[in-house]
């Protein structure tokens, strides 16, 4: 560490610390004011309470929204991870014309304005006669989750040593046996990581759910509805804090798993990890 510090231009490292503060500070205010006794979020705090948290489980609309979010999140993460596995495997293992273009198309939702993606899907779904429900939200979430799933999975699949699969086939394993006993254990952490990432994105996603849902609210939609009432703000802050911690936790686990997957597939076991 001292060796690094010697080369570190002072202003650059202080800038880095300031930048981290800028990134984190706004988010930190949510938990701080969620335990404040006053309803308006201002300094100095008037007192510490867990009152707003205690109220949460007593709100039926919130319980419904939580269930809806869980259903949507689990369905979307499984579907997008399955589609992500197919695509990532194809991209990392095969070479064919149009491969880059197809990859670009699949990754496109990442860089398109969400509102435009959402209203386009809304138009098609209404034209197809689909009634808006949690199912249409899942369809939308899968589209925006696939790029993230692909990113996590390609990093796990890349550098995958094909000779291991060949060895297994040479030693008499069936194609399915090879997949189950060689391929799957190698890529399992990447797959779980993708599931967690997609679940987190779906849990936090607002715009697409807002446009594509019928009457059922997911958690972000519930929060959006509550934001109109100033008196409900502390409750929203408490709920937001819980969501925040859920995202932190899920993403930390996902990142650890993704790294493990990347290390596992790298040839000599962690040489470049």
């Amino acid at each position: 560490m001292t060796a690094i510090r010697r080369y570190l231009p002072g202003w650059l490292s202080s800038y880095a610390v300031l930048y981290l503060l800028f990134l984190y500070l706004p988010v930190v205010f949510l938990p701080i004011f969620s335990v404040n006794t006053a309803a308006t979020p201002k300094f100095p705090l008037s007192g510490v309470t867990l009152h707003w948290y205690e109220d949460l489980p007593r709100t039926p609309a919130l319980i419904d929204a939580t269930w809806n979010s869980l259903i949507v999140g689990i369905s979307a993460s499984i579907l997008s991870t399955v589609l992500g596995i197919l695509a990532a495997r194809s991209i990392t293992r095969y070479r064919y014309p149009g491969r880059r273009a197809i990859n670009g198309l699949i990754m496109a939702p990442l860089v398109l304005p969400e509102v435009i993606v959402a209203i386009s899907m809304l138009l098609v779904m209404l034209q197809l006669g689909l009634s808006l429900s949690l199912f249409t939200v899942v369809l939308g979430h899968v589209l925006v989750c696939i790029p993230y799933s692909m990113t996590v999975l390609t990093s796990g699949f890349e550098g995958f040593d094909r000779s291991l699969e060949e060895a297994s086939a040479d030693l008499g394993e069936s194609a399915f046996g090879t997949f189950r006993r060689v391929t799957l254990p190698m890529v399992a952490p990447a797959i779980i990581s993708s599931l967690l990432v997609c679940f987190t994105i779906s849990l936090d996603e607002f715009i697409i759910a807002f446009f594509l849902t019928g009457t059922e609210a997911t958690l972000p939609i519930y929060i959006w509805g509550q934001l109109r009432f100033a008196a409900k703000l502390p409750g929203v802050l408490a709920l937001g804090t819980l969501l925040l911690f859920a995202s932190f936790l899920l993403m930390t686990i996902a990142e650890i798993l993704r790294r493990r997957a990347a290390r596992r597939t790298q040839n000599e076991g962690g040489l470049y990890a």
Partner: protein
Amino acid sequence: MTVAAEGSPPLRMAGSRRRPLLQSEAIQGFALISPTFVYALILLVLPILVVIAHSFWTQNYLTIDHTFTLENYRIALTEPIYRDLLWRSLYISLTVSLLTVALAYPIAYFISFHGGRHKSLWLFLITIPFWTSYLLRVMSWKVILGYNGVLNSGLMGLGIIDEPSTALLYNSTAVIITLTHAWATFAILPIFVSVEKVDRTLVEAATDLGDGPLRSFLRVTLPLSAPGVISAALIVMIPTVGDYVTPKLVGGKDGVMIANAIQAQFGKASNWPLGAALSVTAMIIVSLMAGGTVLVFRALQRLAR
């Protein structure tokens, strides 16, 4: 996180000679990706085509008149309200993308050149806030900038101002601050990847040949990392032009953006074709602006050499 979709070339199928009946590699690869590809075709390409088609039609109360017309585009481009919203959206997205890139570059450079063993920890720390709900992050800026908010009460507590300022929230500056914060990570990652690729021996060579740190940075590192800077600018610019949540929550009357007008056409106003035309116009103009930005960056890159 990783930006790995275009990494090392895929390994060739060595096993095919053992199984002569196996179809060619291309067909296998294509078959494997086709479910995902078809999904994207049905839920992304088809919907966008439908939006484009709608933009040439007319709303007739509850039905849609399918006769071809450019009327919606005339309204989108000439009606002062939409013209103003488009300009404001473009101005905000351009400002936000330039700001995020300028703020992100030193961080990406710092992590790449001075991150040492802690590179991945730094990247992790920087990506984590990004994974929290976008809605919540925008909400926290509302809490900070509000009339009874953190900044006002803090400044009053310090005796810097006497009464809460209303200038902080509900204007385009609030939108720019919030978006710059929300998109920070998106800008850092591509820049980091390209700074990481800069051949360190070239930097050393520049130093050996007598360039000072600033000169070698301007003439070696910066031009070589330009692709990352360009893609970071685009990755921020294109989505932010259509942002809905931020202008709605912190923009107030003066911070309304085109996405809010688009939403209104699909909601209360119920004029789908006009909403579609506004979407298409916004996308085309932001693409042109993105193209222009790329050209400007390229020209600057050439100047630096």
